[in-house]
């Protein structure tokens, strides 16, 4: 190529561009470009039209990268509109560059090719989004940067009145009226039969809803008549049918009555032709009116009282998915299922909140009875058209203020009405047209037709406008539930809640009473960091306002005691879990080494493995003297829980000491979880073959031996107790111990002191089983101590002969109780933990540990000690709420609390408070869906441009990009310091402006980047990626302040309604 640049000026330009474009990979690209002259174009296939594609050599195995560069010049030439000239030049001088048989060298094809290229070159390609741009998704900050550079001023997300919905008219124009089925008017009995059958579930249509005695008043009938209403899902969409009862009563045509009149009355409405659904609720009945695209109202459908209308609507809503939806969506209200509007629900039971909004009450009352839903169809086809005309509308419509919604919409409404005039409404009203009607129409004079049309046009325009206004007011009714009606001023809150201010608010007893002021100040200014620790308990509702310092200290102490008690409970269970884990691990390792035929893991290796495990628990607060007296809480009050107990390792050592030194080959006793049993069984079987001796030993288990073993354990344990005296004895439950004792303790009441000692004495160092049974080195102790579950894996390190797993209990063992009842003697209650409980806790425990370990490990605060605290908080909470269990995200919520209050029990208290609200956000609750729906409505009202974009990408409606925001209260989106402020805002907003502050924060985040989103026409996935990349890089102060402004905006909007 370079070679002919000299001769052809155009080519020179292109060549320069190519080099510039290639930039970095210059060496490679140069070779690619240079190849052009040296490797002449291969001859083209003879069918070679002039199309560019046919120029590509048909070699499939060439490397793409090379090709890219090779043809880059063509692309660039095309962009520069020089390609045709270059080719022309090539053709003219073909002899210099090409072999004789090349296509370009052919006098005919060559000139054809070059002249064909003139066309494409006339087009401007640089405006097109070049395909290369699709390959790379620019990272979020680049987008933000780009935006900052390109857009000098950001367009404020002004409250534009959403434009009156011209979609209606567009739909009307694009609607092919042929799709409308009006087949039901047939009176012949055979079709009547078909018709009635079509009302049932059949292969073509699914019956979504059916209800009899729904009343409709057809034309020319004085009063509503009962009939059967049904909702069908067909391939084309939803169809609502209503059939008078007279037709439903048997289609056998027995009476010979002329039913044609009833056929004329029956109703069939295709939902895709319906735009608005009006709901009028009155004392007598609930009426539903469907308004079509052409503005024609269908006769009211009157439902009997009692939620039928609601269930119909919710069926309709479900049926519309996924391509359409009700707008606004029905609200799910916990307990009562779907409801119409939140505003109304809120308003009724809490009139006190609305006192200041007295003037608007009448309006609201009316709105409470009437709802207007819009049916939105997201079908791909008309999307593009809508967006285009949207742009036109935006230009045409005059600037509007949020204060005068009705006046401002009226202009566009007339626009839309003229549009709907332009496209004559399809003549099908859904009511079955009878030939007679048509005849009358035709007979009328032109003048009459004109005047009727005029009237119709005007009335439709009016009704359309009315429906739109009502629709908006329904949306706004929802919003009114989101904010408090009274606006609280922000004067004097610039500095937030400082230590001075806080102290000045406190009386001499340390009580703070002016809670409204505290909330107000915090809402607008946040809390000074030093006093967060004091203030947060108030904000979260743990401390009562007005409580004295003394009371609070008492409250704290009581809470701590309770916390410790709870902890002692789950720590016992944890010990059991540990034991099982070890056994499971041992079993699977045994199995693995067995299966792979490798030598067993070396002693050191195995130790390592388990020491890893130990390290996890070694910091556990060791509980707890298991003396019977424990019920009286005789534990040292000071910090029994938090004091570091001898780590498991230490205990291990102790135990090892207590046994013969020769036994330092610690036996790992593998009791498996139920779920692991198959593995263990496997391993057992395998091992069994290997080592029959061991097996034999293990099966001769009998009560006698167990008794012996108890004695043995007791003796050993006592030794340990002595040795470890004064060290805060770790005393939890060995599953082995449980079992043995469980056997004896059939009746707990009869538990003797001695037995209690057994139960209480030990010990659980999971890894150290008192009895390394089966080990020859254990001095013939054949007692097997961990027989809780049947399979028992023991890995021995050195000993080749043993190292087996045991099955000490046959499944048929006569101790079924033990399977379900794990006695936890160490617990203060001497409680009995069921197997399910242990397993469920085990599951939670593992999850907690996994998440705690990786929680904010980039912050130095989260060292081992604090991670342990976090773990304890989690475990305690989960233990108290085992039915919900641990869910990912809880750690994230607890972490900032711990950072602020430092103290474990207090952090737990705050976390519990926090969770009362946050809990609903988790998958078990329903708040998340509500949040998404609220977001939708908010955006619709506050930023219609963004809303339309989201609508254009249909899948946007599920706001999943906000999921993490709501679940974690923005904890992952902001830096720690900012999280604190954001949380304070959320907590105080509850009493100041809105109980749903998270929504406004989310909205503020969205609005901050609205221009980036709009400019890049981001879709659902783009947005997720964008915000994930922007995490912890937001300007929090700006976002918080914007969020407050948005609340204010909504409040003003509603006030001025």
């Amino acid at each position, binding site marked *: 190529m370079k070679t002919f640049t000299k001769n052809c000026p155009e080519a020179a330009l292109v060549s320069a561009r190519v080099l510039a474009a290639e930039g970095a990979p210059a060496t490679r690209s140069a070779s690619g470009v240079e190849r052009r002259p040296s490797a002449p174009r291969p001859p083209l296939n003879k069918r070679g039209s002039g199309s560019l594609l046919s120029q590509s050599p048909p070699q499939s195995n060439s*490397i793409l990268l090379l090709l890219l560069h090779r*043809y880059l010049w063509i692309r660039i030439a*095309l962009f520069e509109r020089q390609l045709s000239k270059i080719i022309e030049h090539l053709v003219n001088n073909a002899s210099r560059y090409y072999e004789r048989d090349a296509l370009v060298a052919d006098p005919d094809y060559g000139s054809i090719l070059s002249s064909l290229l003139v066309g494409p070159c006339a087009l401007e390609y640089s405006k097109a*989004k070049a395909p290369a741009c699709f*390959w790379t998704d620019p990272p979020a900050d680049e987008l933000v940067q780009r935006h900052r550079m390109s857009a000098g001023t950001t367009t404020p997300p002004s409250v534009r009145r959403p434009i009156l919905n011209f979609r209606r008219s567009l739909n009307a124009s694009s609607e092919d009226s042929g799709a409308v089925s009006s087949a039901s008017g047939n009176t012949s009995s055979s079709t009547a039969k078909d018709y009635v059958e079509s009302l049932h579930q059949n292969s073509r249509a699914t019956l979504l809803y059916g209800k009899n005695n729904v009343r409709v008043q057809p034309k020319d009938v004085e009063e509503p008549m009962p009939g059967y209403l049904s909702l069908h899902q067909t391939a084309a969409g939803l169809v609502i049918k209503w059939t008078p009862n007279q037709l439903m009563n048997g289609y056998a045509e027995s009476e010979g009555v002329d039913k044609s009149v009833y056929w004329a009355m029956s109703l069939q409405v295709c939902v895709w032709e319906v735009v608005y659904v009006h709901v009028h609720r009155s004392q007598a009945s609930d009426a539903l009116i469907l308004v079509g695209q052409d503005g024609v109202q269908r006769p009211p459908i009157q439902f009997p009282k009692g939620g039928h209308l609601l269930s119909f609507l919710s069926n309709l809503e479900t049926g519309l998915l996924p391509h359409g939806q009700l707008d606004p969506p029905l609200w799910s209200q916990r307990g009562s299922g779907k409801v119409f509007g939140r505003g109304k629900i809120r308003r009724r039971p809490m009139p006190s909140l609305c006192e200041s909004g007295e003037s608007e009450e009448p309006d609201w009352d009316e709105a409470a009875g009437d709802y207007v839903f819009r049916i939105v169809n997201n079908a791909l086809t008309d999307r593009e058209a809508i967006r285009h005309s949207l742009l036109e509308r935006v230009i045409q419509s005059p600037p509007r203020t949020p204060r005068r919604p009705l006046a401002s919409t009226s202009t566009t409404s007339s626009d839309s009405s003229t549009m709907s005039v332009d496209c004559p409404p399809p003549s099908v009203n859904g009511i079955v047209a009878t030939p007679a009607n048509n005849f009358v129409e035709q007979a009328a004079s032109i003048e009459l037709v004109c005047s009727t049309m005029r009237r119709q046009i005007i009335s439709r325009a009016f009704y359309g406008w009315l429906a739109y206004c009502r629709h908006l007011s329904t949306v706004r009714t929802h919003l009114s539930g989101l904010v408090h009606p009274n606006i609280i001023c922000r004067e004097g809150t610039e500095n937030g809640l400082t230590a001075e201010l806080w102290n000045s608010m406190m009386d001499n007893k340390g009580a703070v009473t002016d809670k409204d002021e505290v909330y107000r100040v915090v809402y607008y200014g946040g809390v000074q960091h030093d006093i967060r620790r004091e203030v947060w308990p108030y904000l979260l509702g743990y401390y009562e306002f007005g409580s004295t310092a003394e009371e609070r200290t008492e409250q704290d102490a009581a809470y701590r005691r309770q916390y410790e008690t709870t902890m002692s409970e789950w720590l016992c269970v944890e010990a059991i879990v540990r034991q099982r884990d070890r056994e499971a691990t041992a079993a699977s390792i045994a199995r693995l080494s067995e299966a792979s035929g490798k030598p067993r893991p070396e002693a050191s290796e195995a130790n390592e493995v388990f020491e890893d495990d130990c390290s996890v628990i070694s910091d556990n607060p060791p509980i707890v003297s298991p003396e019977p007296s424990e019920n009286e809480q005789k534990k040292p009050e000071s910090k029994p829980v938090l004091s570091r107990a001898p780590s498991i390792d230490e205990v291990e050592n102790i135990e090892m000491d207590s046994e013969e030194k020769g036994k330092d080959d610690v036996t790992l006793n593998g009791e498996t979880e139920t779920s692991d049993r198959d593995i263990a069984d496997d391993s057992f079987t395998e091992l069994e073959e290997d080592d029959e001796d061991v097996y034999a030993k293990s099966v001769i288990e009998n009560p006698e031996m167990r008794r012996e073993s108890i004695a043995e354990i007791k003796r050993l344990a006592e030794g340990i107790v002595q040795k470890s005296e004064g060290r805060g004895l770790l005393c939890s439950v060995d599953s082995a111990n449980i079992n043995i004792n469980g056997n004896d303790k059939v009746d707990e009441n009869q538990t003797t002191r001695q037995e209690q000692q057994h139960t209480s004495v030990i010990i659980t160092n999971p890894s150290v089983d008192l009895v390394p049974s089966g080990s020859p080195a254990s001095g013939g102790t054949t007692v097997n101590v961990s027989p809780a579950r049947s399979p028992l894996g023991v890995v021995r390190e050195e000993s080749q002969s043993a190292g087996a797993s045991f099955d000490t209990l046959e499944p048929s063992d006569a101790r079924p109780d033990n399977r379900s009842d794990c006695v936890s003697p160490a617990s203060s209650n001497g409680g009995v933990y069921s197997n399910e409980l242990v397993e469920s806790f085990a599951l939670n425990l593992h999850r907690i540990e996994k998440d705690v370990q990786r929680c904010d490990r980039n912050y130095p605060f989260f060292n081992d000690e604090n991670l342990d605290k976090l773990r304890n908080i989690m475990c305690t909470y989960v233990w108290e709420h085992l039915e919900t269990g641990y869910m*990912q995200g809880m750690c*994230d919520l607890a972490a900032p609390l711990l950072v602020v209050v430092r103290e474990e029990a207090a952090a737990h208290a705050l976390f519990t408070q926090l969770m009362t609200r946050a809990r609903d956000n988790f998958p078990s609750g329903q708040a998340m869906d509500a949040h998404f729906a609220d977001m939708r409505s908010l955006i619709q009202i506050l930023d219609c441009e963004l809303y339309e974009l989201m609508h254009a990408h249909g899948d946007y409606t599920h706001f999943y990009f906000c*999921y993490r925001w709501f679940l974690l209260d923005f904890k992952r989106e902001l830096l720690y310091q900012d999280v604190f402020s954001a949380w304070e805002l959320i907590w105080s907003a509850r009493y100041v402006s809105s109980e749903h502050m998270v929504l406004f924060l989310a909205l503020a985040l969205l609005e901050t980047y609205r221009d980036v989103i709009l400019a890049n026409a981001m879709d659902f996935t783009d947005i997720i990626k964008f915000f994930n990349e922007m995490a912890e890089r937001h300007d929090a102060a700006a976002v918080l302040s914007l969020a407050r402004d948005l609340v204010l905006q909504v409040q003003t909007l509603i006030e001025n309604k």
Partner: protein
Amino acid sequence: MSSRKKVLLKVIILGDSGVGKTSLMNQFVNKKFSNQYKATIGADFLTKEVIVDDRIVTMQIWDTAGQERFQSLGVAFYRGADCCVLVFDVTAPNTFKSLESWRDEFLIQASPRDPDNFPFVILGNKVDLENRAVSAKRAQQWCQSKNDIPYFETSAKEAVNVELAFQTIARNALAQETEAELYNEFPDQIKLNANDNGRNRDGDNCAC
């Protein structure tokens, strides 16, 4: 836009929490390993271009939350997936056992057209650790029993097999796409109608 021949392969990574889904994804895309990843909440994805059989394709790799309770959330993301990667931790037998349910759940939720032949790939992660508990043989057997799912032993930490595994993932995902344009050997750089279509898009000007 269908005529634009950008090939986007949507890949979903599933598996119990803590098996290393995020790490694998980041190792593949960014060639980095960090021990600071947090538990994934919600969903995230990364994209990367790879060359499969001379074709440039963009992989959109979705990383999901591991706790099964969050699965209902994942449904929105499963849709339209071209390949599903199931990850387990070779040191944790339970994570291996739940593969089955992850697979079933995915098939139910994503409801691909041909569930029997939907491409899965199994990754046994963390092979760099010493305390391995699931043998390669056992994993291999399971994969064979499930219609011969490809199985790789990976280490996101040490970048063992990660590249190879994702190449296979991309290839299998691509094979899943049965578009006619597969036969066309060039992507889209000089197809005229593609550009024509592009003209309608407002967007960044790009003159490359």
